[in-house]
């Protein structure tokens, strides 16, 4: 499906990509990880036909540089940093939909699922007429995700896609990815593996422009799965209550017990959050809601069956 053949890229004297050979098949979900300057963004830009380079990049045998419209019509891209576009949200959606030959309504539907208030009957609060650049970071991210997923893309290139999303939006984002998992190839770039580990079934690590790790990972985590979570705390702590509130958890009357749902792929992030308050937590349990194996997480934060 995607083939990088001896791809090299040099900026002035700096060799940012150094002979990358990589093949990614249909349905693979690849985490592209590496530190700053490892070459992730450059590789993505080569894949999108935006950079000239040595070697060749092909998607289904076609070059994204030579056959731009045909190849890019099948790629949905979410950048790490949203572009500072001054155009209204409605126009951006129409522009992208027109170029991609898709229905703007599909983008709107996905944006709504992600929690964006696109229009308001009262005329206030809707964002269709607001400038894209004036939206919050999370709103921009949701909109760019909606544009990328609101068409029949065969390849999704996502650069830190969930970084600015709240837990509820991340849960829906994972569901959206799960709906397409079989039919698309995903390339998800991140600085840290734990941010994307639950989303992928293959990990490619870049360092100094070379592939230093290419490994398959256990694919047991369902993208659409959810975990029922219960947390008991020793005493009421406003900071923890606020953090759990942001995950849509509800507390008992005395504030000592909290219950809520965590998206399957988000479990690591959730445990990371709870680890900050580990001294306060007396009991925590995570149980797969669709009848899977329950997990009991000890106070140290490591999962125990």
């Amino acid at each position: 499906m995607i083939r990088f053949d001896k791809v090299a890229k040099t900026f002035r004297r700096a060799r940012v990509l150094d002979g990358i050979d990589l093949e990614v098949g249909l349905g693979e979900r690849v985490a592209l990880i590496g530190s700053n300057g490892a070459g992730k963004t450059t590789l993505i830009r080569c894949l999108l036909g935006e950079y000239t380079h040595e070697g060749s990049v092909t998607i289904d045998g076609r070059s994204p540089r030579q056959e731009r419209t045909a190849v890019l019509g099948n790629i949905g891209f979410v950048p790490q940093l949203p572009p500072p576009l001054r155009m209204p949200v409605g126009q951006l959606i129409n522009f992208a939909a027109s170029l991609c030959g898709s229905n703007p309504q599909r983008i709107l539907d996905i944006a709504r699922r992600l929690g964006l208030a696109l229009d308001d009957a009262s005329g206030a609060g809707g964002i269709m007429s607001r400038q894209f650049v004036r939206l919050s970071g999370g709103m921009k991210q949701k909109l760019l995700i909606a544009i990328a997923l609101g068409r029949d893309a065969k390849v999704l290139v996502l650069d830190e896609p969930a970084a600015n999303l709240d837990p509820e939006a991340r849960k829906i984002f994972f569901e959206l990815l799960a709906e397409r998992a079989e039919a698309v190839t995903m390339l998800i770039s991140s600085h840290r593996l734990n941010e994307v580990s639950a989303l992928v079934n293959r990990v490619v690590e870049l360092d100094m422009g070379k592939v230093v790790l290419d490994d398959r990972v256990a694919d047991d985590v369902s993208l659409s799965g959810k975990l029922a979570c219960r947390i008991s705390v020793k005493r009421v702590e406003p900071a923890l209550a606020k953090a759990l509130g942001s995950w849509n958890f509800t507390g008992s009357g005395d504030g000592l017990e909290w219950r809520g749902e965590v998206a399957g792929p988000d479990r690591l992030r959730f445990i990371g959050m709870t680890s900050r308050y580990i001294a306060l937590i007396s009991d925590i349990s995570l149980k797969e809601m669709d009848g899977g194996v329950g997990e009991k997480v000890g106070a140290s934060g490591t999962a125990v069956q």
Partner: protein
Amino acid sequence: MKQLWLTAKLDIVESLRARWFQIYTLVFGGIVALLFLFGLTESRVLGFIGLSRLLVTYIQLTMAILPIFVLITTVRSVAGDREAGVFEYLLSLPVSLAAWFWGKIVGRYVVIFTPVFLAMLGAVLWALVVGIDVPWGMFGYYTALLAAMAACFLGIGMLISAVARGTDVAQGAAFLVWLTLLLFLDLILLGVMIQGKVAPEVAVLIALANPLQVFRTAALALFDPQLIVLGPSAYVILDLFGLPGYKVFALFYPTAIGLGAASLGYFLFRKGDLP
């Protein structure tokens, strides 16, 4: 074609919301308003009466302001968009590079030409309302001259944007181009000729190659058909082209420079890294 119009429309919408466009519109609208306010249509100097005096003053001021305005705003926004990641995102969408580049030029052209033209049109409409004579021939030719000037400097601006990667470098290069053209206006050339360091033919040739000078001379030619104010170089121009020929040259030559520069810019843009 659809991609080109979509890109042009996108650029127009982006520009309309940019601060530079608001200042740009204010400047040209303000010039016309001030010219009316200072009663230029009422004055009678060197035979100019009615709106012709206002139009002559307006075109002279426009020639001083428009090139640097177009150059700086074009390179700032294009190079700035590239630096800010706008190119990275929008060029990940399935749009051909030709549609993108030329669509941007079309959109930008509409945005820079419209305020300049509307300001002049506003003056004409006002003149009709208050019963001032409108020199339609002059109005038509000045409109064409402004269109050629906008095309010329937009093309040069797009070429600079394609060559220079950063906003600072692009802005510096644009300023340098404008300064060079300004330095080779006829007054400077005249000084060089007086010093006897350059043959008069070479000096006139350089002046004719300078689009700023071409606009200036063409604008003068409308009210000074003998080009008396230019001195001896007028003989070369009138012998070479004749007055009608020079007026046509003044429209086509700068437009050709603009199109040539834009085409070279497109070639470089297509060959290099996009974001």
